[in-house]
């Protein structure tokens, strides 16, 4: 099949799926709206949600609440993780000391820290930021470390032959050629952060899309629930696309992996 034909079949199939969804959830149809809402209900709800508050805020308020916490945790993770990763690659001894602690923490899902955080800092933004921070930290550190390792050794030798000192080699050669891997790490970290935030909002939040979804589930508002789920997915895609854009801007010499996870 040519790619044109695939796109055509894909578009047709999408329409077909939506039609099947609408048919199954029609009034008096086989699927009750308490089980799954119809596409029309979802759309109506989305428009209503935009202007009228649901459990405390309008849609924009919940979205901003989610996004601000994700960004806070992700940026904090980068501030700690990137220097730590680079330092671990630069000073082997530091890696020997820090890495075992890291290996100990890594297999624990970031979510498992939520109950501990709740006991230590209580329900609030800080608890969610901390959990997102933990989720983002691991990919930040690992990719920063591998970014330094992936630098072509020939470049470093060339730099040294041409008289660069260690500091110049680090700032002018290592960090620059490590940018693509650093950005890949940033993207994975952001994806992890977003996924973890949703879970954190199920457990400890007073606003945010995950909080909306859980409340909608308890109140049997399936239309709100589906709106929240779709928005969570959409925002995740947008964050990932933004990171792809950043990669093209800051490392235009690298061919982008379109399917980056």
């Amino acid at each position: 099949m040519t790619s044109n034909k695939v796109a055509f079949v894909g578009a047709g199939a999408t329409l077909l799926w939506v039609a099947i969804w609408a048919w199954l959830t029609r009034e008096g149809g086989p699927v009750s709206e308490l089980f799954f809402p119809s596409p029309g209900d979802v759309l109506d709800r989305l428009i209503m949600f935009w202007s009228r508050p649901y459990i405390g805020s309008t849609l924009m308020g919940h979205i901003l609440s989610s996004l601000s916490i994700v960004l806070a945790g992700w940026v904090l993770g980068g501030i700690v993780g990137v220097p730590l990763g680079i330092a671990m690659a630069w000073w082997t001894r530091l890696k020997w000391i820090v890495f075992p602690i890291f290996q100990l923490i890594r297999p624990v899902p970031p979510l498992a820290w939520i109950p501990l955080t709740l006991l230590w800092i209580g329900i609030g933004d800080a608890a969610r930021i901390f959990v997102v921070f933990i989720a983002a930290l691991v990919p930040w550190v690992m990719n920063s470390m591998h970014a330094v390792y992936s630098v072509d050794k020939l470049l470093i030798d060339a730099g040294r032959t041409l008289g660069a000192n260690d500091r110049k080699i680090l700032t002018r050669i290592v960090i620059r050629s490590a940018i693509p891997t650093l950005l890949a790490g940033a993207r994975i970290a952001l994806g992890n952060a977003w996924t973890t935030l949703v879970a954190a909002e199920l457990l400890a939040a007073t606003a945010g899309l995950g909080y909306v979804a859980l409340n909608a589930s308890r109140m049997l508002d399936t239309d709100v629930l589906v709106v929240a789920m779709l928005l969570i997915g959409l925002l995740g895609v947008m964050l990932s696309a933004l990171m792809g854009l950043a990669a093209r801007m800051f490392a235009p010499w690298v061919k982008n992996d379109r399917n980056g996870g």
Partner: protein
Amino acid sequence: MRINFLNRTRSSDSSRLPLIYGAGSLLVLLILWTLSTSVLGWIDPMTLPSPAEVVARFGNLIVEPFSGSTLAGHVGASLYRWALGVGAAVLLGVPVGILFAWLPGFRAVFNPIFEVLRYIPPFAWVPIAILWFGASTATQAMVVFIAAFPACVINAQLGVQQVDPILVRAARVLGAGQGAMLRRVVVPVAAPAIFTGLRIAISNGWMALVGAELVVGKVGLGFLISQGQNNDSVSTIFVGIIAIGSLGVIIDTLLQRSETVLLPWRKPRAQRDG
């Protein structure tokens, strides 16, 4: 300052030095933890229990039921749900992935649905799973399934796409039908990628399970730590976290071992996220 990382293959892989440093670092951490809690009492035991308390709590949880089950009961419940979800994801996901790669028409029709669903994080499915199935095993298994399914599909598809068309043509010339082609040519070539998908699916599923159990359920390791939180028992949370982390490591190690046994022809792994 010398640039050490250039020598890393020589210095870190062969010598014992990293092991000594690592052990030392963990030991220092343990000593600091003990000193600040039980010896000097800087930290309130309600905030951070001492290592001895955690070990004692661990022994206690093995013998005495907490929130309805002993530790073994919680572990068993978690493993059961996880196996259900991952099993369903593999049984359904691998064939779907193979079909995606083998039949472009099939892919064109089902890919839109797959793409929409896979970008919704597994935890966002928890509320709807609760709505559909309540606080039951099915809720947890569904969340695990959602977390594990995309990795199975994507990696199976990737594996089949890696099959050299020349091999396929050669097999066809030699008289292989569609069935024989799939069994004898495609699956062996794609097996390492499928296995990678399995590993990712298994660890994604484990992560998602913990999340689902934290939100809803009456048994399981995630439930155990959320009960620890409700009862202000940090040591219970610690035992739960340690159990979740070590089970994850054990499962992954077993898989890595079995890969070398089951797929001795595999090439170096190319990893792919879900």
